[in-house]
């Protein structure tokens, strides 16, 4: 094993092994592919974020005065499509999952390295179609593509947007497939299922959803395109179709898709909380089972998006019940993270700050989900800002917090450099404060009755004050997001060289150099220890103090 004192320039790593654009675009190294994804994902995150800022600026005043109504509709549509399909769904699996899963299980790559590269190309082709859609005048279906609005009534680029989602969906399916096979077949000797880091379990559960769910949305989206182009009567009642059929197909994927977004984040948080508490995770088996439970039961709750859409009373009853059922494993996870901290030895580095933020915001997001699962309440608050606030607490408060926490945690491994800790903490604080200021007022707006997707609310000036707070929060949030991008880039050149294991963390990824070599391990690792054996790691460290 290499020691911490080596300079990155002195030895061969996956980064300096080859140079030139070809060595990147044709690479089959999972770590390089992860970085390719990182670039795409970062690009789309800032594109989607830019749309979000324009939305918030428009809503600063009640009148629709900054952009036209059609433009506003395009902004929230493209914000949703870009963020969901090109950032939230791929972000953690395709960047951190891709980079870490083979290393965490002691393999030199994923099971299908070329398919992994193909996934990236599909993502990029989908991304190019999305960019083309944006530049060609945009699309205003709402990210949900509800019919018959999308199939008959809009004159924008619905088909190219649909195609973009369709193609990028295959990227997601192939990544999921790759992870499942890798987890089954590529584990190092001794790396039993019970020793897998929860990060790997989380991606395994996520992959199941990706493989089983994504084809359904792909079919639904193709049917939208077919109805739009060929006027087949599938969803449009005027042609003999059923608009609720689309909603069922769409949400059959798009509800589980929420778990595609959040489960990998849960995996990250488990790693971080254990490391910075210096503790084994509380209830390892319960945590792994909860992940699988969420993935399975998550498939059975989709119609809770449709309580006022015209489904039968009894269907609503069952979906409400199942929605409460899926909340139980989420609650288990929150309690277990909290208990992991009990009697720990806790430090507050940037990743841990994000983990604190995640636990708090995910709790609020989860609990407000209980309001929406509650039939009597949902009727009033669905399709209002209450829903907008709720899912942003899960996706931004939860998933993006976890993603940033993970990026800080593994950045030394990925880049071989340390990020500046002080700036990191500041950014984490800004994100937390900015996020709450942006989205908490929206819960109140929702209960007051402000519908979502409203360009103009001059009929209800009482909504303005909360919207002003929200826009102010979004500004802080934007700074909080720009900071890490700046200092991560800065650190690639000026950051302190990272030791192999800057956090004294457990896990195979911390036993290899930072950054790793192309084949990760010089010799096949054999695992003889349980996951999160912080007691053993810390004991060893006391016996042999490491010089810094």
């Amino acid at each position: 094993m290499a020691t911490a004192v080596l300079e990155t320039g002195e030895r061969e790593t996956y980064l300096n092994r080859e140079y030139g654009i070809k060595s990147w675009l044709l690479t089959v190294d999972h770590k390089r592919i992860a970085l390719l994804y990182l670039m795409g994902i970062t690009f789309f995150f800032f594109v989607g974020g830019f749309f979000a800022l324009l939305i918030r600026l428009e809503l600063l005043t009640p009148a629709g005065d900054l952009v036209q109504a059609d433009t506003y509709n395009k902004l929230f549509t493209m914000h949703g499509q870009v963020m969901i399909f090109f950032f939230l769904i791929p972000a953690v699996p395709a960047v951190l999952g891709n980079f870490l899963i083979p290393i965490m299980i002691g393999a030199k790559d994923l099971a299908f390295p070329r398919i992994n590269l193909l996934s990236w190309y599909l993502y990029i082709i989908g991304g190019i179609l999305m960019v083309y859609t944006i530049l060609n005048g945009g699309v205003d279906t709402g990210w949900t593509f509800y019919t018959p609005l999308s199939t008959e009534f809009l004159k924008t680029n619905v088909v190219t947007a649909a195609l973009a989602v369709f193609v990028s969906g295959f990227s997601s399916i192939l990544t999921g497939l790759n992870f499942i096979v890798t987890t089954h077949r590529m584990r190092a000797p001794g790396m039993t299922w019970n020793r897998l880091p929860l990060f790997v379990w989380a991606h395994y559960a996520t992959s199941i959803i990706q493989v089983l769910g994504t084809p359904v949305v792909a079919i639904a989206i193709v049917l939208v395109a077919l109805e739009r182009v060929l006027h087949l009567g599938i969803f449009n009642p005027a042609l003999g179709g059923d608009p609720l059929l689309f909603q069922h197909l769409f949400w059959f994927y798009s509800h589980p898709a929420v778990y595609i977004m959040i489960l990998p984040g849960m995996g990250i948080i488990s790693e971080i909380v254990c490391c910075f508490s210096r503790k084994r995770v509380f209830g390892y088996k319960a945590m792994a089972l909860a992940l699988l439970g969420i993935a399975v039961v998550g498939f059975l709750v989709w119609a809770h998006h449709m309580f006022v859409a015209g489904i039968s009373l009894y269907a609503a009853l069952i979906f409400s019940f199942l929605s409460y059922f899926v909340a139980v494993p989420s609650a288990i996870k929150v309690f277990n993270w909290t208990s992991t901290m009990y009697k720990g030895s806790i430090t507050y580095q940037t990743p841990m700050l994000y983990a604190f933020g995640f636990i708090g915001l995910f709790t609020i997001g989860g609990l407000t989900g209980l309001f929406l699962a509650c039939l009597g309440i949902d009727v009033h608050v669905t399709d209002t800002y209450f829903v907008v606030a709720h899912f942003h607490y899960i996706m931004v408060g939860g998933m993006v917090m976890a993603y940033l926490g993970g990026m800080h945690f593994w950045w030394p491994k990925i880049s071989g450099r340390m990020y500046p800790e002080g700036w990191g903490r500041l950014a984490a604080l800004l994100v937390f404060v900015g996020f709450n200021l942006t989205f908490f007022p929206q819960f109140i707006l929702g209960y007051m009755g402000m519908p979502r997707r409203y360009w103009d609310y001059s009929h209800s000036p009482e909504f303005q004050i909360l919207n002003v707070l929200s826009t102010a929060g979004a500004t802080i949030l934007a700074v909080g997001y720009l900071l890490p991008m700046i200092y991560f880039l800065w650190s690639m050149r000026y950051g302190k060289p990272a030791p192999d294991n800057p956090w004294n963390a457990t896990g195979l990824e911390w036993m290899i150099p930072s950054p790793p070599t192309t084949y990760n391990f010089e010799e096949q690792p054999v695992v003889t220890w349980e996951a999160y054996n912080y007691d053993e790691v810390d004991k060893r460290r006391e016996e042999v103090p490491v010089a810094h």
Partner: protein
Amino acid sequence: MANNVDALYIFLLVVSAMMTALIFTMVVFFAVRYRKRPGQPAEQIDGSHALEITWSVIPFCVFMVFFGWGAALYFRERRPPQTSAEVYTVAKQWMWKFEHMEGQREINELHVPVGRDVKMIMTSQDVIHSFYVPAFRIKQDVLPGRYTVAWFHPTKPGTYHLFCAEYCGTMHSGMIGSVVVMEPKDYEAWMGGGGSQPLAVTGEKLFAELGCVTCHRSDTQGRGPNLVGLFGKPVLLEDGRSVAADENYLRESILQPTAKIVNGFKPIMPTFQGQISDEQLNALVAYVKSLGQPANPAAGRNLATATTQP
């Protein structure tokens, strides 16, 4: 209804606030109490089955209270009382059209008397819209090609926001209106200005004009089923199924007569899909519903009879 929803909301709010406070307190307390200190290493704990079961079962029981209470409320929100007055609604990009049983038509404004249950029978001419009155805590999507139903019981005179809550294209945020709740006598006065004919009467005339009456006779001799007293009753179909004759059944039978053939009759009725407007369809449905009702056909569903309601 608004009070019931608010009561449940406050209950959820209090319970969630307690759960949030519990978790936040634990996180903050542990983070401070167990911060890294020299000579105090972490103490390893693997987990606890008892605790896992506790924090699965207790939340589940609490969730079931949410579920049960919410479901009970939903069943009341979704089922209009039999005696409700009815207002036919046609939504389109981007306006609301209302028609009272008395024949009054309104656009983007709905006048109702205080204290009367109002049942909205709604359909859309184009895309999906959603009828949302925040003050009444009710919302119901309005779909093309079928009826959906919402109801409310206004208790206080005033003017309340009406929003479209389902994104419906360019001027979605302009598809707004108001529900004006009036004292019964004011409502009578407002109503008096009309001079239009009741919806069921419009329907009756159409029923004759379109020739429906030749087959759907009020005796047993017609080539089509006798429609008197049909509404709300079960109908035995040719294939042995039995369906309830609700508004959607009547609608479908007019637009796609062959979709459900009544037992003992031939599929000979022509379709009226594309031949009549949504408003005309509403009038026909209102007329068929009025058949076989006691005395003044539509009075029971009139808003103006509000004064007799408690």
